[in-house]
């Protein structure tokens, strides 16, 4: 198996019975997908459960897989749906941030100055830790847009497709996320 083969080709091989192709695919995507779920649900055990469910779903649906879209989009579409399904069954329901995409004056305050670059490892770690805390504080829909961008490298169009919204909404969520993160880091 060619370890550099495109995702779609690997998935086709797996669909046809090549387990090694799945291993390459899994190794490639396990970290980003796990972190996406971990940041979205906030609990390790819960993230592991959802993570396993997503892969099981992929394995179960392999026979129906057709490379009509990018594999990453397909994988994160499964993950997004699993997450929403989980929200829906929980007592709190689907977070309101998925419905509330109204304009926020905050978006007009996009900072133009750069964040201070830490000059040592300790400061870099602190900055990273603060960023993770700010990410955890974001509304779910905005956090998801940020994670899909940073972890899976999806374009705005693909983020829109995965989350079932139009591209403007996806862009708006990402902008809100970035603005809030910058403000949060400066405020600390």
């Amino acid at each position: 198996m060619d370890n550099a083969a495109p995702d779609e080709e690997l998935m086709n091989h797996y669909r046809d019975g090549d387990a090694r192709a799945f291993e390459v695919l899994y190794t490639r995507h396990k970290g980003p997908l796990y972190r996406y779920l971990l940041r979205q649900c906030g609990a390790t055990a819960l993230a592991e459960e959802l993570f396993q469910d997503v892969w099981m779903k992929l394995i179960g649906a392999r026979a129906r897989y057709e490379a009509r879209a990018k594999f990453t989009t397909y994988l994160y579409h499964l993950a997004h749906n699993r997450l929403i399904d989980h929200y829906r069954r929980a007592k709190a329901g689907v977070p309101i941030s998925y419905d509330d995409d109204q304009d926020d004056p905050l978006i007009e305050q996009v900072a133009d100055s750069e964040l201070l670059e830490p000059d040592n490892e300790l400061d870099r770690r602190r900055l990273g830790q603060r960023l993770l805390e700010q990410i955890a504080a974001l509304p779910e829909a905005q956090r998801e847009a940020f994670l899909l961008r940073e972890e899976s490298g999806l374009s705005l169009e693909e983020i829109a497709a995965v989350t079932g919204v139009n591209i403007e909404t996806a862009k708006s969520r990402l902008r809100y996320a970035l603005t809030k993160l910058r403000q949060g880091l400066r405020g600390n």
Partner: protein
Amino acid sequence: MATRKPNESQYTDPLPGEDEMARVYRAATQDVPPVSLDARILAEAQRAVAKPKAHAPFGGRWAIPLSTVAVIALSLGVVLLLTKQGALNHRSELEVPSEYTVAPAVPESADAERVVIVPAVAPPVADMMRSDERVAAPAKAKRAAQETETRIAESVASKPAASAPVELKNKVEAPPATATPQAPGRMQDVDRLSTAREEKTLTRSTAAGVLAMKTQGAEVIAVQASGQPGSYQFNVTVKSLDTGCKQYADWWEVVSADGKLLYRRVLLHSHVDEQPFTRSGGPVPIQPDTVVWVRVHMNTGGYGGVAFKGSVKAGFKQVVPDADFATGLDKQAPLPDGCDF
């Protein structure tokens, strides 16, 4: 982390501050799933595409369609055969005095019934096997299942006997036929044998059944622990009679020897199609020689009767705790917040 590729026109440019934020984020997050979880998923992926070695010619993709065609073809064959036999019997009744037709009619009818009816009663057998497997060794369960299947096949075979006496009434005054008087006797023997076997099977399964009842539908069947003193990860394998959100194993937990809750792993959903299933959890704050219990809870029946007891150092063994062990923990947080499916 993946690299972004600008493949849009209007939306390709990074948003303000995006690259900078990405740099900080990538340096801050290194989380990956645990190795045990990797192993479980990869094993499942491999199992899903594993081909039965004895049936290599057509591969996995054709297995289901071909088996479907084979089942249909066999079914048609059986139906045609039965139709043919029915026609022959009818003809023989026309040609031969009816009193001579009774004896052969019973076994033929019984055979026909066996072929047709046994699959219809198969699900209860499967259910019984599931119950037996919960507490018995696999070989024992298989043996019991075979005997149970035999019992059902025989009792099904004896079913036509119930209708036979109606036909026999017409034969009472007929000239003695060698086969005719034997039929009722044979049928009674079959009934007696069937009853005796049924009693024997029930007696044998009573112990397993009682134990299965005690487990309330779920039990722990394997426990593994790894990690550092004071912070161990547990891999717990559970077998449960899940049917969906109405009946499912909703958590497993680690309890100290004196009944205090050390860790609880809440399960998000039922595992109807994944049995047994393994879920990891932790960290569990114990030392290598700390003796703990690992037990599973069912949303309908409470704690299972079969749990594991032991320590990371000495290992864990299957034990049935006392009924009053650590009662009341099922009201203690964390508790399930709904069931996904």
